């Protein structure tokens, strides 16, 4: 009886590990960046660059530490352009858990406007930040124009749909 119970527990444990591994594998295959034209007006203008946590300082030097302490696994980034003029950058941080994404989102966003994106999101005039599961997405426009907030939200929804 004891033996069979142990075997059953072991089988359950193996199944959980297998599921977790499968889920991790799936995560690494996620491509959250909409292709050019997938979101009206938006063109993907650069290659996707990926930084592991240990190399994150190469991309966000001076700001990497807060992501590392929140458990970032990797950060992917790509440049976009809206209607050939408005430049923006999309950063997708893959955290170790949803808590890590929540921790970053809750830092310094007290004066932001809450938006309906993913599990939670906020928007400013030139940027949108949201989290969905272990992903923390930050989209920043280089300029403020009357159409910037709406264009950013459209792109954010495009990213959210791919996560």
């Amino acid at each position: 009886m004891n033996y069979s119970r142990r075997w059953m527990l072991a089988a359950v444990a193996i199944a959980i590990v297998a599921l977790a591994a499968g889920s991790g594998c799936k995560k690494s295959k996620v491509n959250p960046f909409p292709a050019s034209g997938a979101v009206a007006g938006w063109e993907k203008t650069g290659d996707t660059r990926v930084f592991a946590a240990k190399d994150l300082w190469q991309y966000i030097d001076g700001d990497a530490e807060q992501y590392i302490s929140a458990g970032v696994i990797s950060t992917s980034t790509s440049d976009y352009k809206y209607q050939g003029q408005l430049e923006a950058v999309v950063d997708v941080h893959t955290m170790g858990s949803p808590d890590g994404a929540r921790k970053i989102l809750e830092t310094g966003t007290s004066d932001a406007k809450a938006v309906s994106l993913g599990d939670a999101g906020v928007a400013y005039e030139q940027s949108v930040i949201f989290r969905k599961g272990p992903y923390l997405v930050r989209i920043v426009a280089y300029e403020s124009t009357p159409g910037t907030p709406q264009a950013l939200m459209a792109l954010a929804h495009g990213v959210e749909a791919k996560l």
Partner: protein
Amino acid sequence: MKNRREFLKNAATGALLLGSQGRFGLASVLGQHSKTDPSRLVVAGDPALHAKDGRPDEQRVLDLLDRAMTAYTGRDNAVEAWKRIIPRDKVIGLKVNTVGLKPIATHLVLVLAIAERLQQAGVRAGNILVWERTAEELEAGGFTINTNPAHIRCYGSDVSGFEDQVETWGVAKVQLSKILTRECALVLNLPVLKDHADAGVTFAMKNMYGVIKMVDLKSLHTNICNPGIADVNCIPAIREKVRLTIGDAISALYDGGPLFHPEHMWHPNALMVGADRVALDQAAWNMIERKRAEVGLPTLEAKGRAPRYIATAADARHQLGCNDLQRCGLVEA
């Protein structure tokens, strides 16, 4: 320069030619030319610097630079002001800061204005070298890479490489960029005024982290980069070759730096010029604190990241400059 808007756009990739000037051969030249109070700090502003399209107006930036440089040197004419402080036959490095995306990088329009005046003062285009840590960072900041010595050059330390020798000063154990050690006789420091998550404030002295490869990354970042930043600035090549700072406070970050956080950006519309890197950083800190108070944010002290490296840099051991702005020759132009 025939067309400063285009000067970096006509880039041709060619072999990087590394010069072989003496390490501090410029000291005597600077000694002859510079009779300015070493702690003199000029803050020049233009509230109308940004045009209607939200970008800095090219002509107004040039005018602001001229006003800052004439006030700094005491000369009436901007070109004469430049002639007073730079050698004509040596390589002049323009160390920009492009960490944090284009909107909060050293403004290209400012770099173009400086390059124009340098050439009018007699510096050959190929002897002007715009540089940063990597080509990728430069491009992200809106600059175009060019290694052709027939034109103004622009590339990163990833192209030049770093010296094998490890330089040590206090906690700093670093390898220096060959752009600093072998190419440039004089470096103009062009930092951007920003809040900084690790250092509190990044401006004149922190920008020198961009001329080194860190042997021990952690030691230079612990304790809010204190004494790391002060120690790095005491390394002889950095202390002696980086002789003048033209700080870009056209746009600045009062929180969330050094990365571009548009919600925390403001436009001081100013340039800050001086040779005293400590005075410059003290003034930068004051500006950031004033802005934080204005928008209701706690002080950097209250946030646990006051930039104490500034006082360290002024102490008897480091003697990098003056952190008492009452004693500095602060001039508003």
